C-alpha cells in the first residue's frame, strides 16, 4: 500500500498516433521537477500518470504543489494504490480518508472501472464502499449532487486507486511540446501573462528584455528576472536575452518626430527580437499587446509594428480586457512584481502626444533618418544571456 500522486492528462489525451511523444515530454518534465524531492517511478497508462515516490518520507504536499504548475495535466490527486480486491479497498479506504472525511459533512462515492475484469460494476462499488464509509463515519450524510468530498475509486490495469477531491491541473500541453518562441518582456503586467499563456500551449520560452541604462536601473532588470522566475515555474527554463537599448532610444529621440517615438522604438524591438529569436531556434515572437490598450497598441500602430517583421507574432492578450489580464497575473504570481514602480525601457522618453493613427509610409520615412542596420547591429553585439531556471 503506497500513497502516490495520480495525474490526469489534459488535452493530450485527445492526440492520435503521436500521443506517446506528448506523454514522454510530460513525464520528462515531471521527472525533472519532482527530482528535488527524491526519486520517483512514473507509470503512464490510460490517460494518466501515477507518480510513486521511491524513498520513505517524501513530502507529497510539496510534490502536489509542483505538479499544479505542470502544463499538460488536467487533474491532480493524492491517492492510495491498493491491490484490486474489494476487501482491501474497504479496509484501506476508511483510515486513508480519515482526515478529509472527518472535516466534511457530505460525501459521495464515485467509481471508475477501467479494468472490466473487476468483479463488481461501478455502481456496485459505490454502494459497497459508501455503506462502509457511512458506518465508519456516522456524522456523514450522502449527497450525490453537491458533496463536500467525492471519494473516488479507480480500478485501473495496474492497481486500484482511492482518493478524495481532485485538484485542477494547469491545463494546456506539456512544456516544449509545441516548439519554442521568444517573448518580449518589459516589466509590465501584460507581457509575462502573454508568455505564460503561450507556454501553456506547449511552447518553450526564450525571453527578450530591452534595457536602457542609465535611464533604467539594476532594479528594473532584477524585476524582469523575478517575473520570469514566476513564469519559469510553469514553463521550465527560460533563456533571457538582455538587449542594450540606450543608443537606439537616444537616436530616435534626437532624430525622429516626438509623436512617432514609441512606434519607431517598437519596430526596432521587433526587428532585434526577430533576429535573436531566429538565432535561438524560436519559431515565433510573443508580445502582450491588446488592441487599443495604449497609443502603441491601436490597430494602426499594431499594423506598423507587425510590418517590421516576417516571423509570426503571437499576441494572446489581443482580445482581453485589462481586468482579465490582471486576474491571470495574480494567479501566476506576477502581478505584485509587475506593479513595482521602476522605470522600464517603454516609459523612457514617452512622448506627450503619441500618434495613435500612424501611417506606415511616414514612419518609414522618419526611420530612414537613422542608420537602422548599424544601430541594430550594435544592439545585437551587446546582448547578454541569462538562464532563468526555477527548478535548479
Amino acid at each position, binding site marked *: 500500500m503506497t500513497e502516490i500522486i495520480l495525474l490526469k492528462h489534459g488535452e493530450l489525451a485527445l492526440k492520435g498516433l503521436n500521443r506517446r511523444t506528448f506523454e514522454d515530454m510530460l513525464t520528462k518534465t515531471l521527472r525533472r521537477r519532482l527530482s528535488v524531492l527524491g526519486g520517483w517511478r512514473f507509470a503512464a497508462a490510460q490517460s494518466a500518470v501515477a507518480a510513486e515516490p521511491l524513498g520513505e518520507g517524501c513530502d507529497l504536499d510539496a510534490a502536489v504543489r509542483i505538479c499544479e504548475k505542470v502544463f499538460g495535466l488536467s487533474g491532480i490527486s493524492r491517492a492510495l494504490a491498493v491491490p484490486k480486491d474489494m476487501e482491501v479497498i474497504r479496509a484501506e479506504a476508511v483510515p486513508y480518508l480519515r482526515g478529509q472525511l472527518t472535516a466534511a459533512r457530505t460525501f459521495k462515492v464515485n467509481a471508475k472501472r477501467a479494468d472490466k475484469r473487476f468483479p463488481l460494476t461501478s455502481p456496485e462499488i459505490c454502494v459497497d464502499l459508501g455503506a462502509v464509509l457511512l458506518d465508519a463515519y456516522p456524522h456523514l450524510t450522502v449527497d450525490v449532487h453537491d458533496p463536500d468530498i467525492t471519494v473516488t475509486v479507480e480500478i485501473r490495469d495496474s492497481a486500484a486507486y482511492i482518493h478524495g477531491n481532485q485538484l485542477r491541473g494547469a491545463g494546456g500541453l506539456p512544456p516544449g511540446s509545441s516548439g519554442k518562441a521568444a517573448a518580449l518582456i518589459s516589466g509590465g503586467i501584460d507581457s509575462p501573462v502573454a508568455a505564460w499563456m503561450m507556454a501553456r500551449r506547449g511552447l518553450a520560452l526564450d525571453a527578450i528584455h530591452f534595457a536602457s541604462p542609465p535611464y533604467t*536601473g539594476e532594479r528594473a532588470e532584477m524585476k524582469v528576472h523575478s517575473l520570469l522566475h514566476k513564469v519559469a515555474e510553469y514553463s521550465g527554463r527560460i533563456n533571457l536575452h538582455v538587449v542594450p537599448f540606450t543608443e537606439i532610444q537616444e537616436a530616435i529621440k534626437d532624430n525622429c518626430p516626438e509623436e512617432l517615438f514609441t512606434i519607431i522604438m517598437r519596430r526596432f524591438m521587433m526587428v532585434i527580437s526577430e533576429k535573436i529569436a531566429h538565432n535561438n531556434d524560436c519559431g515565433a515572437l510573443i508580445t502582450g499587446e491588446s488592441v487599443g490598450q495604449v497609443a502603441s497598441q491601436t490597430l494602426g500602430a499594431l499594423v506598423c509594428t507587425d510590418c517590421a517583421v516576417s516571423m509570426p507574432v503571437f499576441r494572446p492578450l489581443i482580445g482581453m480586457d485589462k481586468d482579465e489580464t490582471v486576474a491571470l497575473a495574480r494567479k501566476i504570481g506576477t502581478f505584485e512584481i509587475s506593479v513595482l514602480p521602476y522605470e522600464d525601457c517603454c516609459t523612457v522618453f514617452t512622448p506627450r502626444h503619441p500618434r495613435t493613427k500612424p501611417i506606415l509610409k511616414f514612419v518609414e520615412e522618419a526611420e530612414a533618418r537613422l542608420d537602422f542596420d548599424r544601430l541594430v547591429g550594435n544592439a545585437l553585439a551587446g546582448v547578454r544571456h541569462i538562464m532563468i531556471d526555477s527548478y535548479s
Partner: protein
Amino acid sequence: MEAYLDNSATTPICPEAFNAVTEALTSNWGNPSSLYRKGIEAEAVRESARRSLAGRLGCESGEVFFTSGGTESNNIAVLGAAEAQKRFGRRIIVSSVEHASIDEAVKFLETRGFEIIRLPVDSQGRVPEDRIFRAVNQGTILVSLMAVNNEVGTLQPLEAVRQAVVSSRSRALIHCDAVQAFGKIDVKPSAMGVDLMSVSAHKIHGPKGAGALYVRGGLKKEKNGVRVLPVMYGGTQESSLRPGTEPMPAIAGFGAAVNALPPVSASLERINLLRQRLVCGLETVDGIEFNSPPDALPYVTNISVVGYESENLINFLSERGIYVSSGSACGKGKKSRVLKNMGLGDDRVSSALRISLSRYTAPEHIDMLIYGLRDARNFLRTKK
C-alpha cells in the same frame, strides 16, 4: 572610489559598533533575562548601551526602551499613546511631512475612530507655528512632530508644540520623531518638553535592527510618568513595552555607536564646510533648484535637476559609484509626498534628489557628485 551620499537612508557602520556587534555574536551571546552569569554579562551590555543612550538624550536610563528601530518606536509611540489616552479625547495632530511610520500609523487610527489633523507645511517644509496653536485643543491627546524632516532637512518648531499644549490645558502627549536629528543636533527630550522620542541605531553608524523610544518617567507612576500601552504582548522585556528577547548584537552596536558619536558642535562645523562645498558646486551646474531651505540641517540637501527624472539620474550616478536617493528609502521609488506638500510642482518633485552627508563623507565625494551631475546633464536626454 565610491561616494555614498545617502546617509539619511542608512549609514556605514563605525568600527566601534562593528566590534561590539561581533563581540555580542561570538563571545557574549547570552540571553539577558537568564539568571546565570552568561545572562548577567549580556544584561550588563544592554544596560551599558541604555546608559550611553540616556547620557546623549539627557534623561534617566529607565526612560529609554529598546525597540527594533525607528518605525517600531514611532508605532509604539503613536498607537500606544492613542490607546492609553483615548479616554481623554480622540484628536491627534501630526504634520503632513512625517515619515511613513507615523503617517500610516495615524491612518490606521483614523479607521478606529480617532480624529487625525494633518498640519500643512509652508514652502520650506516647516509647520507654521500659528497652525499648531490653532490645532491643539482640549480634546487633543497626542501631537507628533518630527525634529528634522528626513527628505529636506527642515527643522520643525517643537517648542511651539509644547507651548500650544500647555496653553490649551489639554492632556496631550508630545511625540518627537528624532530619527534623523539624533547625533546631528542636540535632542534632549526634557529640555524640549517632549514626552516621547524615537531614535534609531543605523542612522548613526550603528547596525540595523535596533532603535529606542524615550518615554518620560519610564512608565513609572511614582515618577509621574506618561502612559503608553504596548502594541505587542509577551514577556516582560523592556518593562513589557517591547516584549521579546532583545536583539543583543544590535543593541550592543547601538550603544557603541552612541559612544563613538563626536560632540554635536564639532560634527556640525565639519558638515557645514561640506555643505558649503556642495552648494557652491551645485551652483556651477545648470538647472539645479534647491528644495531644502537655507537654514535646513546641513546634513540633508534636497535639490531638483529640472527636466530630468530622479530615477534616471540615480541610475546614471549609480553606474559611477555615486549613491543618492530621490527621497525616503521607505517610499522606494514613489513620488515624494513631502515635496508635494511643500507645494512644489510635478517637474520639481519628479526630478528631486536627496543628498545626505555623514561624518565619513569626504570632500572628494562631493566633487564626484558635482562632476557626475554635470556629466548627467551632458549625456542624458531630457524627458520632454
